């Protein structure tokens, strides 16, 4: 792996890869999830948090976390992506940890971060300051959350409040999506009484820009992990499948397509790693690029993997379609790539047509 990872990162990757691929079990893990009708596996989340200490990988060691940087999360998300394990790390271990770590008062911070690190509680973040409406559409992992952080604009300062799940008036409607391995829900807090919101802290808009960047990087890392798994499956399958007296991996059409997949994956990987280690002034742009590029790359690679698998690739019994569906769902999270590129162009030209 090498640059930019430390030996800590390498160790996490190794442990997690074993743990998650064991759970994944050639697709049986995700299959059990959608067969169960639930959106994730509580047991895996507990072990992930407690045994491996991964839920709090980015939480300060003072609060029982791993004390690692964005790169640590990149490693975790890559491995989650490679196993389609949709435990709510993206949300709880990501933006929720960052918001609490950076703006919550000490008592709240201590309690919540310690519980998160132990896998006792899970939360999501709804960026309420971006809209007038008091709701959030297609929010990932909301159906398994214990609490919800909501940002809201108040006199040009953004305030973050916390709502416990179960608060009267709070509605969380989960929906089935094209990706059967991760849940989406609509969260509506318009009917919650004012006194039920617990104020956590305040921050400026730039802070939330960074929160969004972090989530973009995590999503992009998940895509890289998923795409790599698709390529691995394809290399394995094409080396064993014999047609016309040869393993199909020996056909140039297959080789070149795999080479193109590799190019996409490695460039996406570069974009993700670069965004994770970017300095503050380059964070927003590099995260946007990583997210737009990696989500597109995953979609392309997953589609190509199906094509190179031939018939078995599009069957339900073979897990490839789950990666393809995840890739389509990721492609539309936090906006489509074409919208990202539109933003990027606005920055390049310094205007907005």
């Amino acid at each position, binding site marked *: 792996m090498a640059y930019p990872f430390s030996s800590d990162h390498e160790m996490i990757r190794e442990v997690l890869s074993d743990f998650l691929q064991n759970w994944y079990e050639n697709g049986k893990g995700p299959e059990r999830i959608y067969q169960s009708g639930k959106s994730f596996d509580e047991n895996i989340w507990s072990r992930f948090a407690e045994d491996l200490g991964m839920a709090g990988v980015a939480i300060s060691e003072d609060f029982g976390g791993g004390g690692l940087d964005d790169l640590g999360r990149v490693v975790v998300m890559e491995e989650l992506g490679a196993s389609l394990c949709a435990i709510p790390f993206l949300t709880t271990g990501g933006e929720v940890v960052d918001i609490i770590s950076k703006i919550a008062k000490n008592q709240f911070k201590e309690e919540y971060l310690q519980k998160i690190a132990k896998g006792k509680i899970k939360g999501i973040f709804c960026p309420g300051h971006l809209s007038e409406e008091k709701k959030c559409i297609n929010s990932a992992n909301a159906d398994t959350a214990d609490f919800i952080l909501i940002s809201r604009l108040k006199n040009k300062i953004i305030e973050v409040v916390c709502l416990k799940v179960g608060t009267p008036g709070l509605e969380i409607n989960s929906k089935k999506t094209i990706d059967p391995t991760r849940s989406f829900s609509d969260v509506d807090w318009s009917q919650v009484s004012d006194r039920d919101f617990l104020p956590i802290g305040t921050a400026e808009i730039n802070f939330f820009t960074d929160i969004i960047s972090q989530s973009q990087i995590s999503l992009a890392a998940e895509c890289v992990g998923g795409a790599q798994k698709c390529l691995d499956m394809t290399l394995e399958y094409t080396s064993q499948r014999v047609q*016309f*007296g040869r393993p199909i991996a020996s056909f140039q059409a297959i080789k070149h397509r795999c080479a193109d997949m590799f190019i996409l994956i490695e460039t996406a990987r570069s974009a993700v790693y670069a965004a994770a280690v970017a300095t503050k002034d380059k964070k927003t742009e590099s995260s946007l690029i990583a997210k737009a590029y990696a989500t597109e790359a995953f979609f392309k690679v997953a589609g190509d993997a199906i094509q190179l698998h031939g*018939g078995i690739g599009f069957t339900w019994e073979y897990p490839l379609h789950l990666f393809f*569906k995840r890739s389509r769902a990721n492609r*539309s999270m936090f906006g489509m790539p074409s919208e990202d590129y539109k933003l990027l162009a606005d920055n390049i030209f310094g205007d907005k047509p």
Partner: protein
Amino acid sequence: MSDLRNKFSKWMENNFCGEYECLRGRATPGDEDAFPGLRLKWEREMGAAGWIGIGWPTEFGGKGATLDEIVGFNEEYASHGGPGRAGHIGETLLAPTIIAFGTDQQKARYLPGIKAGKEFWCQGYSEPNAGSDLSNIKTKASLENNQWVINGQKIWTSLAMDSDYIFVVARAAEGSKGRQGLVFLLVKLDQPGIEIRPIKQMSGTAEFNEVFFDGAVCSNEDIIGGVGDGWKIAMALLGFERGASTLGQQMTFADEFRQIVDLAKANGSAKNPLIRQRIAKSYAGLKIMRFTALRTLEAAEKGDTTKEGYISKIFWSSWHRELGELAMDVMGKEAEILKNGEYNKLQKLFLFSRSDTIYGGTNQIQRNIIAERALGMPKEPRGGGTVMKG
């Protein structure tokens, strides 16, 4: 409008209604398991009115319709929203093969059932280890007491659950290889030696099946051609696929395209210049697909074989796969959401169309065929590379 087309249009108007309403625009690829019973009833309706096999010679009960008439017929069928044709394999593939190569006895036995919409056929070509390599067939047929006994497995057989018969390419001569020693058998599905298992696809539906043969039988009178003719007959049958039926499929595509345009208008995607470019290109592709099919068909009617026919499969399947991606992007924020927990029509289109570029010869195989047959480039060597596992 031709007389025949006119008549058929009126017939559709009067008959494709009532209980059949729910079939409107259904049972197209990706949706072939919709309303199985009713679809077969509808086929009988078509058959009784004489609308099956209109292109067959009159001596076999056809109308000897011209190409223009067949094109018109298909367009009318689609424009009235007629469902995917459960009988098309029998009507457009097997029947012309029997007419060309079958015995009088086979013609008398099988054509009427197809024409009446009462007997349905499916195709037993692909095998798990043969895939796109038809000459690598392993299913065996051995002649015992004037009966062929069949053992082996076929896969990617569409419509098997709705069918009465299957035509099977099997290896008759022990130890034969490649194109030699194959036999083309007509086999009844409802017998102890046959088991059908549906294959669930990523779209959640199951159009394709595995068909297992464990001592299944057919009479020695039920082979087309002789032992060793199997390859020739199988290829000839595929040749009939380049028929007017592709125009019917295009009408289905046009219907899907129109739905996407309507949705784009309704949800505002139509304002997005990137979507507009893709819609326009998709439309151009749809038109060009039609132009190309007509060019091939009209040349064939003149008795010319033209090379552009080789591009049909890869062009329509790639176009359709892109249409699926476009459909999702037009849907926008709703694209991921399953209303009522089920894939809607466009989501199914998106998912099912991934198989279009695979079944019936992958795009890779299509490019090989084009390079070697249309362009005369050197053949792919067999063998070579390191075989890591059989």
